[in-house]
Each structure stands twice: as structure tokens, then as C-alpha cells.
């Protein structure tokens, strides 16, 4: 007895662990260790940027599945650094990606370039922070303007620009390994699914529907398809008899496995001879009888259904689906108009029943799916995604979700930005021009000298251009044309003299090369100029578009995060 109490007292004491003091680090942006870490992170993310990116394989030390990706959300989550600066940047970017799905790599490469450039120019950090913030407001104001040279209005009358937007998202991830027609097919599907989720009759508040993505491995991408309505898993030997439409259905959110309801925390003592199981089962069968009487043809339960009840219902030609899962509950409720039932003892009210127009069985390889056709107009649809292997399929699923999100963002702001690095070079040229012109007004407001202002602005522009440069991974050169300030890439085997022939179009495909164009290599000095607006009658449609909302947010998040990192003077790490 004594030993026992002594041991327990020891165990209680052993939970008291002395807190060790925190570890402090001073002026960390001057330390080469931190700079190296940041540079490494930048190289890693830079090489994953764009359609010709180098892929990354992520695998853990305990033999988990290997993930091949170039998506920022997966990559950043895989980077586990104990350094708080890295986790600060990582956290900001991941937060952005979770809100907007797109432009995560842009934001991280830009943010890390800003930090690196700030380290290079010998200015007080406070000056850099203030100038960065000022130029950011210049940029966002410019992007919000109607006549901004790198913005295109989206035309909802034709699906062409929407498909281009979706396609830019899909083709920017080379892990999907899509051929040209395949990526076109997937982009079309993405736009089709998006359009299906937009309600036709608009009440006072628009509520977008849901797209359920079902990945199926081992088929060609061309087999992917979009269906209105829902596709549910179904038991193998399902027989659909003669069903007259519409079908009445019931949806249970409570378990029908025969367990006891919520009676409380007390104990229940069952004496011999009492058969509670059969009492509950009898209750469940009562429920089955009522459902049968009410001519229900489809019986769905979120959780498990007792096998006897299942058998009883099947025998009476009712289609039974169990273990639906919480994630499909909401789309099913939207699709059928059913109200989930959780009471087992009271009669099910008429209003709780839902309706589907029809059901049919669809076969996708080895998988059998029950297709619920909507009774009226619906905003719920299902995308079947097929691909040859699991890695590609996983990435394709991510990319499709991303494309859906990007398309939805266009409803908020119906415009897009030129892709292919053209927005970055355009903005850089614009900022250079503006900062040169208003240096005398801006520098006193920001409390710095004119030279300081210009040096900091130049660092900002170089960071922007370095993002455009990171699109190129095959030793090609990045150029900027000196009229429209668009981005051009020059393959490594072509010299500058043959530029007109080698690169017919700029990064976004709006500007065509011609004889009297002047180019300059990015990251070299060129005389500042105001980017000329494109001719409105340009015959060329942009081939690469980026989400406007996501990119503007990414720009702001990148600058704010960089400013935050530059402002850090001291690090205190709790090592407990």
C-alpha cells in the first residue's frame, strides 16, 4: 500500500518537468545560415514553378507513399523546418493557397526574392519596408484600373476565355502528364462542371452548388466526364426493376444498426431473458413498414443499416444505400430536397421525403456507380476523373479542384491577368517608370532620400522580374520587349539575332514578334519606359491567363510577408 502511493506520487511528480529557458537569436537576416536556408527554399520552389517545372518527389523516412508533385500546397506542407522564419513564410503562403487555391508558388518565389534583394541592397530595413508598401499600393491601384495593360475582361457569353483560364491552371502542373488534347478535354470538363453549379433562376442570394470529384484509376483521361446529379457507391448485384419516375427517397442521418439511442451516461442492467436486440430490431422493421407503405423507392443512410432491415427492404424492391458518409450528405440534400431523419420512433413526416427523377447504373471499369438523376434543375454535379496511375490522378484531382475554385473567383471579379510572366514584366516596367517620375513627391512622404527610394524600388522590380524568369527551366533566356513590356523566352540554342523567328509569341500569346521590336534581357539594365497599351483590335487572344483575384491577393500577401520577415530583429525559441 505504501509503495503504491509512493509510486503514484512519483508519477505525478514526473509530470512536472522544469521549463528550460528559451533560445534567443539576434539579427537573423545577417546570419549566413538563415540566408542559406531561405535561398534553398527559394531554389526549391522556383524550380517547381510553371508548366515546364521540375517535379519533386516527397517521401517520408518511415516508408510512406511517395508523392510526386509541383503544387505549392503539397510542397510547402512537406517542408518541415524548425526555423521560425521558414514556418512564418510557409504559414502565410499556405493560408493564401487555402483561400484562393492559385498563385501559391508565385507568392512564395516573389516573397523570397524580395527578402533576398533587400539583403543585397545596403539600406535600412525600415526604408525598404516603407518603400515596398508604397509600391505595393501603386501596383494594386494600377491593377484595379480599367485600362490596366495586363488585365483582360472575361466574356461570359463565350466559354473560350473561361477554358483558357482553366487550361492555364491545369497545364501549369506537369505532374498530371497531360497531352495537348487531354488538357483541353479536362479544361472543358472543368468549365462544364463550373457552369452546372451556377444556379439558373437567381433568387436574392446566389448559392453555388457542389461538384463531387470521383477519381478512377487505370483509364484514359479522355474517359473523364461530368454528370449532373450524384453518383453513389452501390452494392454489386443491384437490380433495378421497373421504376416509375419520379422516385421518392428517404435519407437517414442516424444509425440504423440497432444500437441504443442516447439515453445518458448511466448503466443499463439487463436481466436474463430480456432480448433488447430483438426489441430494437422490431422497432427498425416497423420503420421499414412505414417506408414501404409510403412508397419509398430509395433508402439512403449516412451510417450503417442493420442487415435484417436491409434484407427486408431489398425484398420489397427498395434500393438501399448505406454508409453514405457525412461529406455527401449536403449535396444529396440539395439534390433531392430530402430532410435527414434521425428519429426512429415517430412516423416520418411527408415533407422529409425527397425526390429523384430516375436512377441508373453506370459502370466505370471495375466500379459500379448508381447515378441519381435530379428531379428538377440542380446545381449538384459529379466529375469522374480518369487517369493512368495513382500519382497522376492525385495531382489531377488537386488541379481540378484548383481550377474549379479559380473559375468561381471570376464571379467575384470578372477579369483575368495575362499569364506567362507578362503581368510580372509589365508591372515591373510600370513601377520603374512611376517611381522614376514621382520620386520627388514620394520620398519625403516615406521619410527617405531620393536615392534610397530608387534603390528600394529597383529591388522590388528585380524581384518581380525574377518571378518571370523562374518560368524558364531549360537554360533559355528571359527577355522583355521595350514597347509593351511583355515576357519572352529565348531557347538556349537561339541567339538574339534570330529572335523574331524563334519566338513568335510572347509568354501570354497576345503580342507577336515583328522586325522593329527591341528586346532586353531581364535582370539587365534598360532605360525605363511606360509600357504601351495593346491595340484593342488585336487579333490574338491570350493563350495563358491567371486568376485576377488570386494573383492580386498573392502579390499583397507576398509583400506583407516579406515586410514582416524584414522587420524581425530577434528570435526567441521555446525549446520545451
Amino acid at each position: 500500500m505504501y509503495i503504491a502511493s509512493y509510486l503514484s506520487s512519483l508519477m505525478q511528480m514526473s509530470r512536472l518537468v522544469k521549463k528550460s529557458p528559451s533560445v534567443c537569436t539576434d539579427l537573423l537576416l545577417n546570419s549566413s545560415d538563415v540566408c542559406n536556408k531561405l535561398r534553398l527554399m527559394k531554389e526549391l520552389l522556383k524550380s517547381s514553378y510553371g508548366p515546364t517545372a521540375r517535379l519533386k518527389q516527397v517521401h517520408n523516412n518511415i516508408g510512406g507513399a511517395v508523392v510526386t508533385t509541383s503544387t505549392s500546397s503539397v510542397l510547402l506542407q512537406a517542408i518541415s523546418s524548425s526555423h521560425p522564419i521558414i514556418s512564418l513564410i510557409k504559414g502565410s503562403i499556405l493560408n493564401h493557397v487555402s483561400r484562393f487555391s492559385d498563385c501559391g508558388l508565385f507568392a512564395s518565389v516573389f516573397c523570397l526574392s524580395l527578402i533576398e534583394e533587400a539583403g543585397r541592397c545596403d539600406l535600412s530595413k525600415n526604408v525598404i519596408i516603407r518603400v515596398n508598401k508604397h509600391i505595393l499600393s501603386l501596383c494594386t491601384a494600377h491593377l484595379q484600373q480599367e485600362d490596366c495593360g495586363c488585365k483582360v475582361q472575361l466574356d461570359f457569353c463565350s466559354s473560350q476565355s473561361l477554358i483558357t483560364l482553366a487550361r492555364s491552371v491545369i497545364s501549369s502542373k506537369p505532374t498530371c502528364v497531360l497531352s495537348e488534347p487531354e488538357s483541353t478535354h479536362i479544361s472543358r470538363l472543368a468549365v462544364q462542371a463550373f457552369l452546372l453549379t451556377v444556379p439558373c433562376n437567381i433568387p436574392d442570394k446566389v448559392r453555388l452548388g457542389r461538384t463531387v470529384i470521383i477519381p478512377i484509376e487505370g483509364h484514359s483521361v479522355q474517359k473523364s466526364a461530368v454528370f449532373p446529379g450524384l453518383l453513389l457507391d452501390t452494392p454489386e448485384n443491384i437490380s433495378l426493376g421497373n421504376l416509375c419516375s419520379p422516385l421518392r427517397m428517404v435519407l437517414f442521418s442516424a444509425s440504423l444498426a440497432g444500437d441504443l439511442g442516447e439515453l445518458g451516461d448511466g448503466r443499463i442492467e439487463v436481466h436474463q431473458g430480456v432480448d433488447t436486440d430483438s426489441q430494437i430490431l422490431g422497432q427498425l422493421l416497423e420503420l421499414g413498414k412505414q417506408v414501404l407503405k409510403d412508397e419509398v423507392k430509395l433508402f439512403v443512410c449516412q451510417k450503417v443499416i442493420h442487415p435484417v432491415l436491409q434484407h427486408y427492404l431489398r425484398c420489397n424492391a427498395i434500393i438501399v444505400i448505406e454508409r453514405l458518409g457525412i461529406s455527401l450528405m449536403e449535396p444529396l440534400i440539395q439534390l433531392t430536397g430530402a430532410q435527414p431523419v434521425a428519429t426512429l420512433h415517430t412516423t416520418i413526416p411527408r415533407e422529409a421525403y425527397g425526390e429523384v427523377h430516375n436512377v441508373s447504373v453506370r459502370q466505370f471499369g471495375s466500379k459500379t456507380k448508381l447515378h441519381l438523376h435530379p428531379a428538377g434543375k440542380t446545381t449538384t454535379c459529379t466529375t469522374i476523373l480518369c487517369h493512368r496511375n495513382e500519382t497522376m490522378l492525385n495531382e489531377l484531382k488537386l488541379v481540378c479542384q484548383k481550377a474549379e475554385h479559380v473559375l468561381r473567383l471570376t464571379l467575384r471579379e470578372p477579369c483575368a491577368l495575362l499569364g506567362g510572366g507578362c503581368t510580372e514584366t509589365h508591372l515591373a516596367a510600370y513601377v520603374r517608370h512611376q517611381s522614376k517620375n514621382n520620386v520627388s513627391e514620394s520620398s519625403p512622404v516615406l521619410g527617405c532620400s531620393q536615392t534610397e527610394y530608387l534603390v528600394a524600388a529597383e529591388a522590388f522590380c528585380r524581384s518581380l522580374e525574377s518571378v518571370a524568369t523562374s518560368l524558364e527551366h531549360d537554360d533559355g533566356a528571359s527577355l522583355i520587349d521595350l514597347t509593351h513590356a511583355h515576357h519572352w523566352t529565348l531557347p538556349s540554342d537561339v541567339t538574339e539575332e534570330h529572335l523574331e523567328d524563334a519566338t513568335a509569341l510572347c509568354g501570354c500569346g497576345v503580342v507577336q514578334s515583328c522586325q522593329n521590336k527591341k528586346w532586353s534581357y531581364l535582370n539587365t539594365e534598360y532605360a525605363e519606359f511606360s509600357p504601351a497599351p495593346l491595340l484593342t483590335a488585336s487579333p490574338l487572344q491570350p493563350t495563358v491567363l491567371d486568376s485576377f483575384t488570386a494573383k492580386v491577393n498573392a502579390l499583397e500577401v507576398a509583400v506583407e510577408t516579406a515586410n514582416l520577415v524584414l522587420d524581425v530583429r530577434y528570435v526567441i525559441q521555446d525549446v520545451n
Partner: protein
Amino acid sequence: MVPVEQLHLSHVLQTVSALESIVLRSFGPEGGQVLFTRDTGQVMLSRNGKRILTALHLDHPLARMVVRCVWKHSTITGDGSKTFVLLLASLLRIIHATATKEPHMFQPHNSTEAAEAATARHLADRLLEFALTELDELIVLNVLPHGFCVSLDNFTAETQHNLSCQTLLVSFFRTRLGYAYCDFFRNLFCELLSHWKVKDDRPSFSIQFLNNSFPALHTQVSGVPVSCSRLIEGQVIHRDFATPCPQVRKQPLKAVVFNGYLQPKLLATQDVLELRCGDKVTEDRGIVHFSSWTERSVESIIATLQSFGVSVLLCALKQSSAVLAAATQAGMCLVECVSDEEISLFTQLSGVTPISDCWRIHPEHIATLTFCKPLLLGAHRNVHLDFHDCEERLKVKPCSLVICAPSEAQADQHACAFQDAFRMLLTALEPVCKTQTALEETIPSKKCTSLHADNISDETACRVHPHQKCVTETGCVISAGGTFEFLLHHALHQYGHSCSVSVNTSAVVPVSQLLAKALLSVPRQIYSHNLKHFLQAQTRVMALIPKQPHALCANFIHTEGPLGDGKLSSCKKGNISLKFLDLGLESVSCKYQLVLAVLQCLTNLLQTNMVLRTHTVLHTKSHDSLNAHLESSEDEDED
């Protein structure tokens, strides 16, 4: 035996200087952020001295005592933690210098260290005594005429005062969040205040209310730029609807709050339900009977609610799926797991009481809402609602604050700055005027205290609020950038001169001189990047002081009492405020309390002369050591 560690003055100085060097990184206009990680790996950011110091998890007992004092002070005033450490270090340095220079001025001692310690202790006591008796008068006479008053009424009024109040806030946010966002958050803060300002009531009431209910009043959103931060009308409940979203329906809506479960718990933890084998015919289906009873009771509750026309249910607890289904079928929307703070805010704003007994629902439980809808903030769906007749009932327009930032750490930092701004305003504008209590506590008792000293500093730090009423009564502010320190420095200097002339105690170092010298270290750090600016600022402030002969000044103090409030508020506000507004403003009463708190802490520090390190068994299996510990802890410390 317990290991004993003698504490010398130099140790104390060393410790405080170490703290100072950490705090200095984020002090003043050129200061930056401190990034820290929690033991959970969570990254936090701060420029708040209190947070930085507590994040250190210090081991040294003296340092912990200092941190404790800082923590106490800035929890009350919401500001001044960095200056606290700075001033303390500077005072210690000066006392150390004085004590080593003339260690025998007090009494003969056997060792130089002991003599130094005695001198230092003596000086600290006299400093505190001086501050408690003379400082307020000095401030009233020499500092207040250069400041001016703000009161809370001015926040919304479009006057010149308004400008100064806003400047006060800008300076505060600048020290907390840096240049980039201070103006933005100042505007947001003023907007919030004006929404919550109760008409025809004491303004501090609404600040107090905001301070208390701030956790429920703000929502942090990460992943979007700071500029997206905004106010939204009504209250945000940080939960999603548990039942499918409500359709657009007639307004206004009726809502109730539940504290408990809607479905009755039939069996409490101790209860036992016995199921006997009875007569099958008479027994009503056994166990099924019980569960059907609970379901029927849910239905009857929902029916009662329906008869009242209730369509929104806010519940503190998680409800069963039967309740959710019943609510869905009745067309009600239900929110589960609402936090206590939000429920209390809701009940305060709606004026209803939560239902604890589901069988007794009365009209006074039913609140009226203008709307109740889902609101997507960042990644989370929230419930957004507004109250129907709030403007007539409470005379306020309820609104909630959405704080946005790219990372959680930054959003959290901004929220903390808001919370502290309320505290700062409360101290600055309507400070607590405590009567003189237990001053004898601070008079040195010749007892050595073992430094498990948390409780000591607790007691004394609370009693910082001094006995006088004059300084603290008005919401007096003065331009920032060291003006307070320059002015007080000058006043103390003059005072010291007059004392040494009139009272012939040349042997004693005038303590006012020490304090004067120490005060200058604060502006010196503010302008540490540029000495020229320091001198410029000093000349600028000195130019304001009217040239008076020393003797006259001293007489003035003795003959006249503290100036009346009316004089202070009106004098000079025009020219100074305009001249120094670009530097920002700070509250005089905050500064005054700061000086007192520092001196209090200093006395505490210097009274200690020994550290006893007692041992508690951690991870030790040996029985002997436990016994040894028991023995050793019985040894009382003695001097």
C-alpha cells in the same frame, strides 16, 4: 544544505542589462519585430515588451522577478513595458556607479560589496520615497503645462481635440505594429469606438465593455492582406450552422439560447436502468420505450418553440442527431457549441436570458434578430446576426471586428494590439484613483527574502497607484519622442539644485539628480540611431521651458499647491500640439505610473541579497533524495 548564492549589485545590474538588450531590439521608431515560437511549434510575432519577456522562460530568479513586475505593470496600463526595463536598467547603472564611487557614505561595513549593497538599497528607498511624495507635484508643475487634455467625448466629435486623440492612438499602434499599419488600425479603432459609444453615457463605460468582450467581438482571418480588415454590423458567432442553412424568410427572426441539452438525458451517471423479464403483453416494448420517450420530448420542445415563432437556436452544447433532424424538419436553424463569451455577449446585447430548463420557455427568453445568415470569413463559416432594436434599447450600434493578416501570427499580434489599446486608453483617460494604501509595505524591512519571489512582487506591484489625485484625474497627453522625459529631467534637475542649496546636506547625493539622469536614457534610446536628432529634440523641448531662477522655482513649489484642472487643460495646447503632433502623443498618467512602478521594482530588487535554491525532486527515483529534500526544505532562510 541549500546552496546559497550571494547577490551583488553587479549581478542585479548584469541581469537587468541582459533583459534590456533584448527589449531594445524592438524599442523606438527604428525597432522591429521579435519572432518567437511556442513549445507547440506555433510561431508568434510581437513588438510588445510584455510578451517578449514572458516568452523567454527565464531561469534566473531575479530576472523572473523583473519580468513579473513588468507583466503586472503592463497588464494594468497596456503599455510601457519596454520603457520599464530601459528605465530600470538605467537607474541600476547609475546607482551602481554612485555606490562604487562612495561606498562608505552610509555606514561602515566589513566588506566593500556589503557596503555597496547597503548604499544602493538606501538610495533606492530614498528614490521611492521621493517619488511617492514629490514626483506628482513636479509633474503637475513642470510637465502638465506643456501637455493638453483629451477626453473620450472627443473621439467622435469633429474638433481639434479629436486630432490629438487620434494621434495618441497612432503613436500607440506605431509602437506595436510598426509604421506600415498604424494609420489603418487607428481609423478602424476609432470607427469601432464610435459604433459602440453609448449615447448619453460615460464614454469609459463603452471602452470597458469593449475591453471585456473583445474575444467575442473580433474574428481573426489569415491568408488575406491586412487591408481587408473591417468592421461588420452585428455579432459574429464563430460556429457554423449545424442544420442545413436557413432559407431566406420573413424578418425579424426570433432566437433563443440554450445552456443544456435539448434531448433529455434519461440516465445520469449514477443511475442504473434495470430491464427485467416481465409479462410481454403488459410491458411496453422494454428498452425501446425509453428512447422513444426522449424523442417525443424533443418533439414537444420543438413544438413549443414553434408556437413562439422561434427559428434560430443557439446552443452551448453539442446536440444529438435527433435534435438536429427535428430542428431541420421544423425549419429552424441550430448552432451548436457556442462559446461562453459569445453567449454572454449575445445575452447582453439582446437582453434575454438563456434557457436552462427546456420545459419552461417564456417570452423573456426570446430575442429578436434582424437577420441571421452564414458568413464565410477565411476558411471558416460563421453565423452572422444582428439585433433588432439595439439602437433604441442599448443606444449602441453593435458591430464586430474582422482582423485580417497573411499569417495567424500577425493576425494575433494585431488583435493583441487592439486589446492593449483599450487598456491604454482606460489608463490614459480615466485612470484609477486609488487612495493611499499600505505604503509601509514598501518601506524596507530588514528581512532577507528567498527569491521564490513571485508573491512579493505581486503584492507590491499592485500598490503602485499612489496616493495623490492630481496627475491622474485628467486624460492628459504630451507629445511623444521623449518630451516627458526631457521635461521631467529638467524639473528634477532644478529641484535637486534648489534642495542642495536650501538644505545643507551636502553629504547626501540628491536622489532627484539620479532619477533625472536615468530618465534621459529613454530619449537617448529613441534617437539611438542618430545623436544629432537627440540633441535637436532636447533643445526643442528645452526652448519651451520658461527661464526662471532656481530659487524662485523652489519657492513656487512650496507655496502653491497643485494647479487646478481647468488651468491645465486650456493652457498652451494650441502651439505645442501643432508643433509636435508629428511625433505622436503619449499619456502623462501612463508615464507617471511607469516611473513609480519602476522605482517600486527597483526597491524590491535591491532588498534581496541572497538566492536560496531549494530542490524539488524531479525525475528522481531515489528515496534518499526525497528525504533529503524534506529535510532541507525545513531549513528556514535567515539573514
